């Protein structure tokens, strides 16, 4: 097959590309440039990190003996991932930009362009397994290394795009094995640190990033009964379940810490309460993408965070809306609208939907009830 290997400049994508080469595919490496300074002239506006990553990706391609190109996807990225990230926070929701990037960039713009240029598949360094059933249909599964498993952020791609994807690291036992393999192959990125932060928030200060885009929007922090407890500088900077940065002067009556229960952008209010009030009983979601036929009610495991646990639940699909009732109320806490809900059957991904509301064990609802 003709395979386009997305090379980020990190160790995972380099080893994935190497494995694709070993498997006998005709591999071409592409580094996606996802941000750029707007300055037409370069003096004084060099971003060393991205250039370093592009250089590392180029070296990996050299070592593997494959062609290497840089594709500038920065405009699409800004429009579909960064702008969405800001708009979602502004609307009081909690987005996952990695999910959006997989949905709009890696397995959309990049994949579409690759296919148009004659490639059969896109290969990435994601930790997830693809299993092919006897009838030829493909299933997305959790990676063998559950600590690195990335099926959660991939679930949004759906079956057609999965059919053109390749994740050679799905069977790796641990990340250390990937590093060891990189070192054995002479890839200089073998010891490069993992990236965790949101790539376009370079300093990790998400609130600062949002403030720079959205400006100051002072408002009130209230408790469940509407009593004003404090002030904030923009409701967009808060996420359901958040404890830090609330700056409430008065202690709670029960002396326990307070958490964000909901963000209400229309009133620019942040509602806080106790940890108990974050406990969730059921989740409602829409914009569902299914890997297999999904109708009626069925048991599943629900995961709402990239690094969270999946909890037993029953899902009901009706008119495009997915209601997911937890088998054990309170098994999840602090679910926010905008989060990605991924449903599993064992290791297999059933589908993915975007949370619109969470029904609290206490009977309250966070988010915008449909």
């Amino acid at each position, binding site marked *: 097959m003709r395979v386009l290997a997305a090379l980020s400049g990190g160790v995972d994508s380099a080893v994935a590309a190497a494995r694709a080469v070993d498997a006998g595919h005709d591999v*071409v490496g592409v*580094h996606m*440039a996802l941000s*750029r300074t707007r300055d*037409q*002239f*370069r*003096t*004084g506006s060099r971003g060393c990190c*991205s*250039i370093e990553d*592009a*250089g590392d990706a*180029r070296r990996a391609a050299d070592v593997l003996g494959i*062609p*290497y*190109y*840089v*594709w*500038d*996807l920065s*405009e*699409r990225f*800004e*429009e579909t991932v960064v702008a969405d990230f800001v708009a979602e926070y502004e609307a009081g929701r909690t987005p996952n930009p990695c999910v959006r990037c997989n949905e709009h960039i890696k397995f959309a*713009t990049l994949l*579409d*362009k690759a296919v*148009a*240029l*004659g490639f059969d598949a896109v290969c990435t360094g994601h930790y997830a397994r693809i299993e092919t059933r006897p009838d030829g249909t493909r299933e997305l599964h959790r990676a063998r290394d559950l600590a690195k498993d990335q099926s959660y952020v991939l679930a949004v791609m759906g079956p057609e795009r999965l059919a053109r994807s390749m994740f050679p690291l799905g069977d790796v036992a641990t990340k250390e094995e990937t590093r060891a393999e990189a070192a054995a192959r002479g890839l200089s990125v073998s010891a490069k640190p993992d990236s965790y932060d949101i790539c376009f928030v370079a300093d990790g200060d998400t609130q600062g990033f949002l403030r720079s885009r959205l400006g100051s929007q002072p408002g009130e922090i209230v408790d469940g009964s509407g009593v004003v407890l404090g002030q904030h500088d923009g409701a967009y900077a808060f996420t359901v379940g958040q404890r830090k940065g609330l700056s409430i002067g008065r202690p709670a009556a029960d002396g326990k810490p307070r958490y964000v229960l909901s963000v209400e952008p229309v009133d620019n209010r942040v509602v806080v309460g106790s940890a108990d009030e974050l406990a969730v009983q059921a989740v409602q979601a829409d914009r569902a993408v299914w890997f297999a036929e999904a109708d009626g009610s069925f048991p599943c495991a629900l995961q709402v965070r990239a690094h969270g646990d999946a909890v037993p639940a029953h899902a009901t699909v009706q008119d495009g809306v997915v209601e997911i009732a937890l088998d054990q109320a309170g098994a999840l806490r602090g679910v926010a609208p905008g989060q990605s809900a991924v449903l599993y059957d064992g290791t297999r991904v059933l589908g993915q939907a975007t949370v619109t509301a969470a029904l609290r064990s206490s009977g309250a609802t966070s988010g915008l009830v449909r």
Partner: protein
Amino acid sequence: MYLDHAATTPMLPEAARVLAEQLVRTGNPSSLHASGRAARRVVEEARERLAAALGARPSEVVWTSGGTEADNLAIKGMFWARRNEDKQRRRLLVSAVEHHAVLDPAFWMAEHAGAELVLLPVDGDGVVEVDALREELERSGDQVALLSVMWANNEVGTLQPLDDVVALARRYGVPVHADAVQAVGQVPVDFGASGLDAMTVSAHKVGGPGGAGALLARRGLDLTPVLHGGGQERGVRSGTLDAALLASFGLAVEESVGGREDFAVRVGALRDTLVTGVQDVVPDAVLRGPRDTSRRLPANAHFTFPGCEGDSLLYLLDSAGIEASTGSACQAGVPRPSHVLLAMGVDEVAARGALRFSLGHPSTAADVDALLAALPGVVDRARAAGLATVGTVR
């Protein structure tokens, strides 16, 4: 099939031979003993060769590490010298289509050294607007420290009206620098006759080695040094001279200038075949730069292909064994819409579909035939991939 000679061109066999021969030499050209004197003699013979080929005096040659360093020395060194002499001369005039080796130091001087940068506009062919320059000089000629206009553009091959530019500048006492990196060996270049105050040349563009260049600086031109150290090159450019590189450089310039007329006739005809051929097989391809071939470099052809992205075209041609260029500067390998095309009034979407084909001394009709055979399929496929990566908001 290599169609990217404007990026770099293979070494001339004689230049390669001299380089290899001289590489094993012992001796620093600045040393006073016999080995040093022998190395110095090699350097000075190269200086005489290069000067003679380009209509300069040997004393006007300042060796550098390449074209970029020579451009930096010209922009910074001439600006500082002129400004120190006359404090009100702070304006720095450069054409909007200069190579980044001129533009970026000019922007740097504006950011860090108090220069007032003026970008001179160009017309649709990429030719500097002489009327705009005249108006600029009439308005503030006594405040201009330096003017830099390239001899020929590296992307679209446009030859600039240097005679007019120099005549105007002289009237206002403004020194003129020209980056002639692309012009040497392709069009007649005579530094003395040009009236220029400084001119940049590069070795590897004319079949010499990488890592060598020169700034020709008119005798009496005041240049503030940029590199300080051992005081080589009259104190203007410190750094140990590399006899082998310079010997090879001098020879390459001599040979390429000596063969220039034949080159222009033979390669110019190939280029004409290429241009007509591309327009035959891809009728909507747009030739950029002057249609009148006497107003552009004989080895240059440049097109935009509507509905295509340059990086798609580049990849598809590369996988068909044909090496070309988008022509514009890259940041970390990312093709950007060319500032040259934008300055010529080409819109950003069209500018993304740019490809430069540049020929050189080894080019043959087979290279052009291979391109013309591959191009229709490549363009169809690139069009199908479309402008997938371009944002939807325009």
